[in-house]
């Protein structure tokens, strides 16, 4: 009795956190998990019957004779999603690292202004910002009309409704998630180390590669994870910029809960996304323990 009371007294402080995590994370995930093992209701929702159909549908389909046959359609969507998310991470890294490096090198007052500018796009609705990209990319859009006016091309380039457009939209959307953690890592970097590297026969680029990049690796990895996870499940950019023909996992999930009315399948897809993300995080954690991406101070 006294043991329990002492335990509660010692751990009362984490109660609010535990409550928030429980209500807003554990419970919803459990609901999704349970739904994914039920049968779809006729008008959306679920019927309380146990079923593994949702998971079967990921790889198999019933043919005309009601036999299960292998169907790679959803697997393809999965791989396309992984591919586009990876492209988005790479793009964010290529653009985000120099931006973060530049900001970290500015005087302190100016840094805060830049950081504010980085976050400004968040003040506008994501849907509207993504629509704007349609205006830029479409056949009669900004880029095509400019290029045609300059006489560079005769016919409009197909920019919109491509995988490239989706990746561009994702890069645009998630770039602050890459810039901010890298900036945080670079801000702590001791600039005298760069001088030491130059003194020891490193060029500018050598110092960047051997000193700055390894020491900002925690920020690079954190930024990559922060971009990869939402990019994998994104559906606004794939829907608007991919035109719905280049489906990604996120749009597929959204489809199951709306037009397709197959909640269990949508839930199963969500669980698959979560499993993939967890796998990536576990690989990262293992790498960290080995000291591969770890930061020692």
């Amino acid at each position, binding site marked *: 009795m006294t043991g329990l009371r002492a335990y509660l007294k010692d751990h009362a402080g984490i109660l609010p956190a535990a409550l928030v995590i429980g209500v807003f994370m554990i419970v919803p995930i459990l609901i999704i998990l349970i739904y994914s093992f039920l049968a779809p209701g006729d008008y959306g929702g679920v019927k309380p019957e146990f079923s593994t159909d949702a998971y079967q549908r990921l790889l198999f389909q019933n043919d005309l004779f009601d036999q299960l046959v292998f169907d790679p359609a959803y697997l393809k969507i999965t791989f396309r999603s992984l591919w586009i998310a990876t492209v988005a991470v790479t793009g964010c890294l290529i653009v985000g690292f120099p931006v973060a490096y530049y900001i970290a090198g500015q005087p302190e007052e100016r840094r805060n202004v830049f950081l504010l500018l980085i976050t400004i796009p968040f003040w506008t609705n994501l849907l509207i910002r993504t629509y704007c990209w349609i205006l830029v990319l479409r056949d009669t859009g900004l880029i095509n009309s400019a290029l045609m006016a300059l006489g560079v091309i005769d016919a409009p380039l197909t920019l919109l409704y491509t995988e490239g457009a989706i990746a561009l939209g994702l890069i645009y959307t998630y770039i602050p998630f890459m810039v901010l953690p890298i900036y945080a890592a670079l801000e702590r970097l001791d600039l005298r180390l760069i*001088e*030491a*590297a*130059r*003194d*020891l026969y490193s060029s500018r680029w050598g110092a960047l590669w051997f000193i700055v990049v390894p*020491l900002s690796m925690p920020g690079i990895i954190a930024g990559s994870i922060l971009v990869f996870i939402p990019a994998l499940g994104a559906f606004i950019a794939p829907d608007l910029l991919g035109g719905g023909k280049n489906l990604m996992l996120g749009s597929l999930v959204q489809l199951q809960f709306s037009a397709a009315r197959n909640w269990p399948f949508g839930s199963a897809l969500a669980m698959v996304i979560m499993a993939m993300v967890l796998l990536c995080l576990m690989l990262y954690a293992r790498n960290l323990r080995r000291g591969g991406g770890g930061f*020692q101070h």
Partner: protein
Amino acid sequence: MKTAVSIKNLNKIYSGVPPVQALRDATLDIRDNEFFTLLGPSGCGKTTLLRLIAGFEAPTGGSLHLFGEEISALPPESRPVNTVFQHYSLFPHMSVLENVAFGLRRLRKSEAKAHATAQEMLDLVHLSDFAARSPGQLSGGQQQRVALARALAPHPRVLLLDEPLSALDLKLRQSMRAELKRLQKETGITFVFVTHDQEEALAMSDRIAVMSQGEIQQVDNPARIYEFPENRFVAEFIGDANFFEARVGANEEGSANYHLFDGSKLHGPQGHAPEGATVTIFFRPEKARLAQTGLAGEVTEILYLGNNTDYLIRLDQGADVMVRSENHKDGTALAETGARVCVEVDPRAIRVLIP
């Protein structure tokens, strides 16, 4: 004797409002294979001069030659010069061995060769057992020795040391002095050492350049710097000194009388100033002694220093002087506070400063 670093009319002005002249018309030759020290208070320009040699700063004017080659336009990585930094600046994400091998690897030595040389360098600074550690696991003194090994490993023509001992405690600092001196002899590399610690400079250097307010005040060996400072700044910055304004009196056979303005008189060597001129003369506190004859006064304060005792004496004519003296062999003091004493100054100890 070959010249390692030749500096001519070197200037450095940091832009800003107002601009700061960190180095003014510095002219200096540092000889090959010498332990050369840049000594001065903070802000005197000694670190700026070091950074100009290393290539971290570009001079505003003047020339900078390394073994005859003009280097002021070269980036740091193209200069055969390495630096031991004040704050060590070891790479935290590399092992001690990788740190030491870093310069050699950038010079495109094979990994095996670089690691072998790095291991030798770690032997040289007695840290061979620490090769696999990360710098964060070492003490300050050990980190300093790694920084030294790292800078020596590529065998630079000149090694620059930027107050490398200032972060260490006293005992460690003293042992590192001997260590640095030994390393300089063993490697035969020219050392350019920056410090604000005059004792350090006197103990280690072959020659010293004393700097103040961006200008070089005097370049000489330690004994000359201490015994024959060329101006008041040098005399004041290194060691202690009792200064007097005096009028040059009658000359006789190479010596002269100096009439102090409080009315007393000191006998000293003849300077360059003619009879009747006003000059500054000084003597070191350990070159005077408490005696029966000389300038009379009263002991106002006693500072016990262990090996010596400093006696502050107010002369009857008004001036304050300091006398540094050993205690009696039995350990008792020469005089108590308030005692009447006389200060006797050996005429050979009197220095006349050129005004």
